[in-house]
């Protein structure tokens, strides 16, 4: 394999990796703030895909503009889900939140399958290719990576520079103490769930601009989000981005040295091993 090819594989991997990263960021944010493993994450990613796809193909609205709408819808939708379901079980044993989010997943996937069937969709959108020396990259993937970085920056600005963002961190740190300080924890939890959902929807929307998909596709990205979350440390949003890059690099490079079908085996074994040896994640600071 020539170096140009290797570099292209690596770059492709990294570009898709950051998009995985943003999906994982949503998952890990929700875990960090409220200790909920959101099993509806994949369904939301799928809905994000359909959102961008349908707006683009039906109304001819530019996919990136559609993405904005999808993000907003994701935020509101997530908050709604929180108020209707999660809020009722937030203090129950963790099995309740696992099953509640899984039930939501079933409902969305069930409705989605009934309405959209499982035939693959393709937005048929392209921005051409960009060549940098020996490396050739798809424009849509490049833009997706840029959007991801922007969103991550935005999330950081929100968490560290704004009042509600500081509240989110306070609640994540210690909900009881935050409540004593007068922080409206119920609203902050809803907001956090909304943001987590929004990030999943954005990830889905971005993926729809360069991959074909169906209603079940989100599930794969949910699993990748788990792996990334564990790589980067559950509850650590920057970790998610780095974890995404690591996973992306692995997916870019491993197929060069082994059959494609072995890649997920490596990924899941890695996931198990990290959980066992360092549940705080490779990049996470404090251990259990």
């Amino acid at each position, binding site marked *: 394999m020539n170096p140009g090819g290797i570099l292209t594989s690596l770059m492709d991997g990294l570009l898709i990796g950051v998009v995985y990263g943003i999906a994982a960021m949503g998952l890990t944010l929700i875990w960090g703030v409220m200790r909920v*493993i959101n099993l509806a994450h994949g369904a939301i990613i799928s809905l994000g895909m359909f959102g961008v796809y349908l707006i683009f193909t039906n109304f001819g609205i530019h996919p990136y503009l559609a993405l904005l709408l999808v993000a907003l819808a994701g935020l509101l939708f997530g908050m709604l889900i929180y108020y209707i379901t999660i809020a009722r079980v937030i203090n129950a044993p963790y099995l309740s939140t*696992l099953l509640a989010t899984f039930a939501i997943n079933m*409902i969305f996937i*069930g409705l989605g399958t009934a309405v959209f069937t499982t035939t693959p969709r393709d937005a048929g959108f392209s921005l051409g290719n960009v060549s940098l020396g020996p490396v050739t990259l798809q424009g849509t993937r490049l833009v997706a990576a840029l959007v991801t970085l922007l969103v991550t920056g935005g999330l950081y600005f929100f968490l560290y520079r704004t009042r509600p963002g500081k509240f989110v961190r306070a609640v994540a740190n210690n909900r009881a103490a935050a409540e004593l300080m007068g922080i409206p924890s119920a609203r902050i939890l809803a907001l956090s769930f909304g943001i987590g959902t929004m990030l999943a929807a954005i990830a889905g929307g971005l993926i729809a601009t360069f991959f074909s998909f169906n209603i079940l596709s989100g599930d794969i990205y949910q699993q990748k989000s788990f792996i990334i979350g564990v790589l980067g440390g559950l509850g650590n949003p920057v970790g998610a981005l780095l974890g995404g890059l690591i996973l992306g690099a692995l997916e870019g490079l491993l197929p060069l040295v082994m059959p494609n079908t*072995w890649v997920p085996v490596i990924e899941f074994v890695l996931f*198990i091993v990290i959980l066992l040896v360092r549940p705080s994640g490779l990049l996470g600071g404090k251990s259990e």
Partner: protein
Amino acid sequence: MNKIASFHPGLWLALAVVAAIGIWPIPAQDAALREVSFTVLIAIVMATSLNVLMGYTGYVSFGHVVFYGLGGYVGMYLLNDYHAPLPLAILAGGAAAGLLAFLLGKAILKLRGAYFALVTIGVNEAMRTFISNFEPFGASTGIALQFSVYGAYGGAKQALWVVYYTIVGLALFGVLASYLIRHSKFGLGLMTIREDEDAAEVMGIVTPNTKTLAFVASAILPGMVGVLFFFKNGNVEPGDAFRLGVSIETLVMIMLGGQGTVMGPILGALGYQRLRGFLLTSPIFKNAQLVVAGILLLLIVLFIPAGAVGWLRQRFAWLRKVLA
């Protein structure tokens, strides 16, 4: 509770329900009814065995189907490649599942709560993707049984009944084992771990061994049942053997019926499978089967987290003797 001769209404009622489900299609030798009971009995075995880990010990696993899938594969491999007799294949399936649980248990049962749940998802996916690459088990295509294998059991038609009688036996055995475990010293140790694992250690329970033993105990029957299911099915492939959804459906059955009780998983399995059967055949709900199941699950989680049997036991103390 300790007198062997004393009357155990909870046990007899549980066995009677399972026996009734099992015997139902036999007098008429009705193949359609048999299929219905077969599905319910498999669900009963899966839910009852998972309940040992989840209901008694308090460890929520999303990987229960791994044992079923691995057992199925090992059994099918022996049946197909070595023409092993079915009973041997069943035992081998159970043994393989138990061995896997033993090897995994020490490592993964260190993790608590949601971390354990997460790692079991990882185990399921690792197993599925690994078997998809594992040539002796046919990699991604799996193992399809040569038709001649059924010959030893009087042809495919007769073999289905043999499989059925075996599953009835395994379900009865599973329920008996579940009851005995719950009312044993081992079971008391498990429930102590469920209530407070740190306190359990302080009280002298050797938690790593006790939990591993529970994990092994919960793995063996699914391994055996997996062999039966895929033998009947005629082929096994990674997607069917390691479907995460099966694990979660099993969790739902336990939640529906009530975790930690003997009767709960039985009623949960029966209720869930009948509902599913109804939804799948109903013209209105056929496409919305998943939606209805999801709404049902959500309602249980939000409003009766103790499940039907748990709720009844809380409401009516006198029922505690009957609904073990």
